[in-house]
């Protein structure tokens, strides 16, 4: 089961602006039935101001495709075409409180539908920049040709570089094996054509070697046994930190009708005065413990808080 945000669910169960628009100013049809997603975006534009006054959608697709389409219409209504075109697929995803990585392509579809609808309104022919070819990264809709071009044009030789240039493999990562294959093939061809030094070509064996962790310097057990230590503080610094921490807690104590005041610090003993509702409250010991925990966290040193 996908983990859809509340907002995705809301926009799926009760989509806004769904349905057909009569006399639309522009229509964008994107997606394809074979991919399982298809979207028709219809916009109404006020020619005087170039403002999108209304938008409707029809979507064939999963929950997040329907939610993304609906979100798109909400985002563009009231915007000028120029403003609307600055929206990215990430804006759609953000509007929905995020999408599962494997579902990011649903927001990409919205992004492209908007461009197609605007092109249609302006009487231009809209051409998407995808080519036919095996889709490698399904999350971002990156095909083999696109990876190959990026590798060739920029002389890429690692998986990380391919992800940075094309986004491929940057989401669910299930296509890494496929990307590496294209990388090996393309690099080999580049070496053969004299475009790349053989020593620099992507080497899957090298990539498979274990990555060493930087040495922690200590046994993992030691970390648990020793108190968390921070750089040594002067007495004055310590007292200031303790004061700050207590000040930070006071508003919460006051909400409950109590208060807490710092009296003195001796070594690791912190003397405090509880007042108001804190005095004689059955929760007093919990309050003291809470203050103590807060101070330990803040100073990174063991301390005892003693009510006086």
């Amino acid at each position, binding site marked *: 089961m996908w983990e859809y945000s509340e907002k995705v669910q809301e926009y*799926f*169960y009760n*989509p806004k602006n*769904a*349905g057909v628009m009569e006399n639309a100013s522009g229509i964008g*049809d*994107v*997606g*394809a*039935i*074979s*991919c*399982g*997603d*298809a*979207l*028709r975006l219809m916009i109404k534009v006020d020619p005087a101001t170039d403002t999108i006054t209304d938008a409707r959608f*029809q*979507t*064939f*697709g*999963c*929950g997040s*495709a*329907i939610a993304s389409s609906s979100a798109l219409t909400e985002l563009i209504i009231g915007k000028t075409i120029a403003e609307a075109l600055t929206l990215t697929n990430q804006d759609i995803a953000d509007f929905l409180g995020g999408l599962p990585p*494997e*579902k990011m*392509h649903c927001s*990409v*579809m919205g992004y*492209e539908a908007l461009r*197609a609808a605007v092109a249609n309104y302006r009487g231009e022919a*809209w*051409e*998407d920049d*995808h080519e*036919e070819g095996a*889709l490698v990264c*399904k999350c971002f*809709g990156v095909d083999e040709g696109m990876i190959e071009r990026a590798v060739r044009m920029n002389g890429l030789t690692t998986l990380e570089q391919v992800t940075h240039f094309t986004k491929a493999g940057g989401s*669910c990562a*299930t296509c890494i094996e496929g990307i590496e294959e294209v990388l090996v093939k393309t690099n080999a061809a580049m070496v053969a054509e004299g475009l790349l030094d053989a020593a620099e070509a992507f080497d899957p064996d090298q990539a498979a070697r274990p990555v060493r962790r930087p040495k922690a310097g200590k046994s993992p057990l030691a970390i648990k046994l020793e108190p968390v230590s921070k750089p040594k503080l002067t007495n004055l610094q310590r007292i200031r930190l303790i004061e700050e921490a207590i000040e930070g807690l006071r508003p919460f104590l006051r909400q409950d009708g109590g208060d807490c005041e710092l009296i003195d610090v001796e070594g690791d003993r912190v003397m405090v005065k509880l007042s108001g509702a804190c005095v004689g409250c059955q929760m007093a010991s919990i309050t003291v413990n809470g203050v103590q925990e807060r101070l330990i966290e803040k100073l990174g040193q063991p301390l005892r808080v003693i009510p006086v």
Partner: protein
Amino acid sequence: MRPVYLDNNATTRVDPAAVAAMLPFFTEQFGNASSMHAFGASVGGALKTARRQLQALLGAEHDHEIIYTSGGTESDNTAILSALETQGQRTEVITSVVEHPAILALCDWLEKHKGTTVHRIPVDAKGRLDVEAYRKALGPKTAIASIMWANNETGTLFPVARLAEMAHEAGALFHTDAVQAVGKLPIDLKSTEIDMLSLSGHKLHGPKGIGALYVRKGVRLRPLIRGGHQERGRRAGTENAPAIIGLGKAAELALAHMLDEQTRVKALRDRLEQGLLQRIGNSFVTGDPEHRLPNTANIAFEFIEGEAILLLLNRAGIAASSGSACTSGSLEPSHVLRAMKVPYTAAHGAIRFSFSRENGDEDVDRVLEAMPGIIANLRSLSPFWKERGQDRPAPAAAFNPTYA
């Protein structure tokens, strides 16, 4: 409201009687069956009983023909890799295009990295195997033919007894992935020529993480997992005693309920299927209705997408599954439906309802009540659908989106 669970081909609820049988083996009888003391001995006895219970369900001739594994996938991998390893001269594998990924992904890997030749036998529009193509693919190089007993998505049955005989005529071993068949169909392995069979506990009200590979006596086997001498050296690793015992109980119960599965459960499935087809236009049954599992219905609803249907069904408290792309995170619809040439507009909207003996009439009523509204709702959102007052789809030319 009580949830309606109709996804039993994905997994089943462990029968409370199986749970009860397992429980003592976590605590009181925790011994290692291999140990030379009383703790081990009592577990050993229980494992023996469990093995016989499973033997009875399979109709196997000997109880030692059963090798416990972690599940169907491990059993499938063991069978095919062993067949290739034991017969060095035979380097080809025959399987079908509609197998489970446990077979298909392994075959893809073998083909790519091990030089194995893989023949993937096609199916027709009803999902029936092209037996003639199967016959032609068999030959002196065939190490093993592996064809599923019943398809997990459509329930379509394959004539495995006959396919096993044909494999033997060519001197090849025959394996069947029977994960969906075991517990739902009467099986009598001793009267067939099937050499190996895979099964999984959680598909028949047993626990997850346990399965078995049946290996007919005399068939040579190379273990996939090497180590200790468990399972007569054919699958190393300390026996998962509680799960094996739970599977034994589940097998006994499945045998006891076999008639119920073939009659009452089948009638529930049929009533649901007919009811849905009556109430919802532009929908049809996929697979071979004449030869299929009694518990499975796979219905394609045109012009809408499966995940959206499942989400709305889930909100109505109904659990089913889909061959749709979106539920798996891939964009392609089920390889099974595509192999059957189900059009994309329908394959994306195929929903599988799979029953078990725990379902009743109320479950069918609930789906029949919820489904028409859900389908109408989603169709109203779909650009491929135009109602025009009489439930007629738009002509194909009306919506031709640019590929993106």
